[in-house]
């Protein structure tokens, strides 16, 4: 048996699954300390399913804590940035395209140092160790505890970054160090951005992963726990502690995978209505459609592979204004149970409107009896118009597609949506995220240099793909469910024999989970 947990900004959801069956599901508020909410949710869900801690084989956690912190610019560390590239790259310094409010948080502690590689593996300039040590001392003196290191062409050769990290660690043993080569691919701006983002989240990642650990300990669960990453595959907790940025898009991925699983529909539009926002995305063959262009996170460009998601400011806690004509984008968020009318508060939210309209039965209905009828009907119209527009924008053709409704805010919908061939609200739709985490897949990756002249491209790619698939299986994926999701070729020109760095990622379902 395994537990899937989704720690969102508003709610912490937990499910217990055995094979393909959802034994129990629970939704409870996220707490400020994160851990309390997890303990409460998991304890409740175990009690509901009458399952003992010893029977739990694994725990999978999906969380938007890191994305939210970055987007909301909360709890971010000031970051030291060391770029190994001089005398090259001076015309494009780190942070040039970062939003101002974010730069205020992470600071402008940039140290340009000699080093980096040419495309053919030569050094642009030799690294000057004293330069790095000096930069580290200056950053230490400024009280900076997290450092991002990037070098030109690090994905082809990471040794300078690794050596620089050793020098920094010798000077500042307590500082966190993030290397760009461990996060990103070719593309210096985006890779460096990802490293800086990651560095800014190090305090939080230790706090959050620590909270996960102690929550499970408190619950007496000794099973291994995993955290889901961008592409929906699982990472160990230790890895997430070091690389929280890799969880950035796991929320939408989990919710869409969960939606496909629950509805048994593999091609559809998924509308995930949360407390503050609604994410709309397209499911193709059971997987989220990926964004074709570089994705901004909190206004910063990255080159992660991310699902193509349209987020709009509509959720169950969104504020309703202008007699229902204007909704959101601000929301009462996790304070829904205190501030909304149905829970005795004084703020008119979309959930109040849905209850007044009879679409939902939550809280105390009598508290919304006094809300003007016109406001209720206009409010419901606005909610549906917002959803219909979002659906239309993500669609690839005019043809109507099935819409799968998930997330806690699904109660806002009380009528057919235009552009949808059908609107499906599967059982347990409110906890699709946690389900998505629980059915998350296992990945296998190959990252190796092949000689295309020797082996030929087709044979080399076949070898890489087969090895990646084998690794996924040995990591716990069920044979027969494994498929290649990513192939990247980086030619290392001017090395003899048409050398190409090939990166292949294959994923498969965790053994014991039926495929979607």
């Amino acid at each position, binding site marked *: 048996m395994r537990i899937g947990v989704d720690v969102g900004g508003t709610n912490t959801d937990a499910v217990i699954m055995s094979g393909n069956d959802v034994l129990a599901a629970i939704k409870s508020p996220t707490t400020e300390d994160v851990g309390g909410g997890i303990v409460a949710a998991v304890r409740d869900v175990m009690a509901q399913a009458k399952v003992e801690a010893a029977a739990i084989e694994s725990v999978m956690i999906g969380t938007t804590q890191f994305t939210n912190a970055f987007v909301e610019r909360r709890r971010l560390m000031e970051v030291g940035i060391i770029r190994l*590239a001089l*005398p*090259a*790259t*001076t*015309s*494009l*310094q780190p942070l*040039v*395209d970062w939003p101002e409010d974010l730069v205020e948080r992470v600071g402008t502690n940039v140290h340009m140092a000699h080093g*980096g590689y*040419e*495309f*053919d593996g*030569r050094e*642009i*300039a030799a690294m000057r160790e004293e330069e790095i040590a000096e930069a580290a001392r200056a950053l230490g003196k400024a009280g900076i505890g997290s450092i991002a290191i990037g070098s*030109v*062409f690090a994905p082809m050769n990471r040794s300078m970054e690794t050596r620089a990290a050793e020098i920094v660690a010798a000077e500042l043993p307590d500082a966190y160090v993030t290397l760009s080569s461990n996060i990103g691919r*070719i*593309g*210096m*701006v985006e890779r460096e951005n990802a490293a800086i983002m990651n560095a800014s989240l190090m305090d939080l990642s230790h706090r959050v992963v620590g909270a996960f650990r102690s929550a499970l300990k408190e619950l007496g669960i000794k099973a291994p726990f995993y955290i889901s990453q961008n592409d929906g595959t699982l990472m160990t907790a230790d890895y997430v502690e070091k690389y929280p940025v890799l969880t950035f898009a796991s929320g939408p991925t989990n919710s869409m995978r969960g939606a496909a699983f629950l509805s048994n529909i593999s091609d559809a539009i998924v509308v995930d209505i949360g407390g503050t926002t609604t994410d709309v995305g397209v499911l193709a063959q059971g997987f989220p*459609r*990926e964004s*074709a*262009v*570089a994705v901004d996170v909190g206004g910063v*460009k990255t080159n992660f*592979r991310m699902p193509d998601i349209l987020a709009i400011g509509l959720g169950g806690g969104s504020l309703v204004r202008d007699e229902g004509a204007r909704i959101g984008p601000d929301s009462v968020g996790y304070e829904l149970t205190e501030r909304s009318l149905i829970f005795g508060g004084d703020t008119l939210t979309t959930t109040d409107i849905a209850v007044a309209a009879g679409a939902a039965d939550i809280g105390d209905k009598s508290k919304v009896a006094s809300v003007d009828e016109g406001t209720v009907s206009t409010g419901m119209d606005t909610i549906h118009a917002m959803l219909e527009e979002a659906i239309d*924008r*993500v669609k*690839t053709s005019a043809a109507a597609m099935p819409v799968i409704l998930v997330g806690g805010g699904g109660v806002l919908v009380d009528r057919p949506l235009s552009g949808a061939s059908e609107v499906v609200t599967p059982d347990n739709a409110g906890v699709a995220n946690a389900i998505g985490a629980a059915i998350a897949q296992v990945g296998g990756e190959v990252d190796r240099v092949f000689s*295309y002249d020797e082996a030929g*491209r087709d044979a080399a790619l076949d070898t890489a793909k087969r090895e990646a698939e084998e690794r996924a299986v040995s990591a716990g994926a069920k044979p027969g469910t494994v498929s290649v999701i*990513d*192939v990247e*070729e980086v*030619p290392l*020109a*001017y090395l003899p024999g*048409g050398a*190409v760095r090939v990166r292949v990622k294959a994923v498969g379902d965790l053994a014991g989970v039926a495929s979607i």
Partner: protein
Amino acid sequence: MDLTLDKLHDFARGAAFLGTGGGGDPYVGRLILQQQLRSGAKVKLIDPSELDDDALVVPVANMGAPTVLIERFPNGPAAVAAVRKMEELLGRKAAAIMPIEAGGVNATLPAVVGALMDLPVVDADGMGRAFPELQMTTFSVYGVPGSPVVIKDEHDNEVVVKAIDDETAEWLARVVCIRMGGKAEITLYPMNGHDAKTKSVPRTISLAMEIGRVISDARSEQRDPFEALADFFAATEPARCCKILFDGKVVDLLRETTRGFAIGRLILQRIDGGGEPMEIAFQNEFLSAQIGETVLATAPDLICILDRETAEPITTEGLRYGQRVKVVGVSVPPVMRTPEALAVWGPRKFGVDRDYVPIEEIDVPA
């Protein structure tokens, strides 16, 4: 007209469009310009007609493989040093800077140099788009010599190439560029104001800004950006043909960096999986698009790959397996379609064994 911070996004998007996949990531170009403009520098764009006939105009470019430029960025100071060296060689001061290439990062680098040197930038270029080789310019086609070519890097290494013709200049400079790390800043085709007026593709920098604006306006007005582009090009002077050649997704991508270029081919399939796939060949830029044996477009007409929802241009290095895209073809101005011009950048120059047929004369199969 000043090129200001608020116009940078549209400019970079339009430069990417004209880059037809190559010319280097204009995102990087935009950031370099952004860093420059934030420091208080100004970029003054002038119409070619504003030039004195005997003024010295110095074209500036970054030479190299796009896959290198996204790691090892173009460098303003090295480009300034290349202009200074050109002034020294000619014994004259430059009156204006000019792009040789309106597509990609080379649309933006001259603006950085103009800002650094406090010189105006001419609203024109020699390609009307991006091309992979230095001799592929209207300057060369209509008789302005490419040499001397000054090649600089950030280490302050300097090579001056004086070649017997522009193809040889390209041949020699490319080797130097590779040795300098796969990218170098260059100045070449020094010319007087009269030649700059009569032997360039005029107003291509402002064209880039307008293309970018058409796409972003269409998005904010929730109009189909592909229709908006077709309407825009139909209304340019002279009118240009703009049409969708294919709608599908990336199913295979082969690329390698050889001889200093990003060379490869791309296979697209219709999203429903049916029909024949489209094959697109590239050498830094997208050069030909065909379905089976039917060639739908070739250089010099523009072949642009755009995100199928947002019409955001995608560069060859930004291509990824599984991307959903629309391929758009756009005709180029008559100055780029004369027999002399086609002898330099017609299909055969890129290994496509057929005569050039203007894109508006080819029917796209349903």
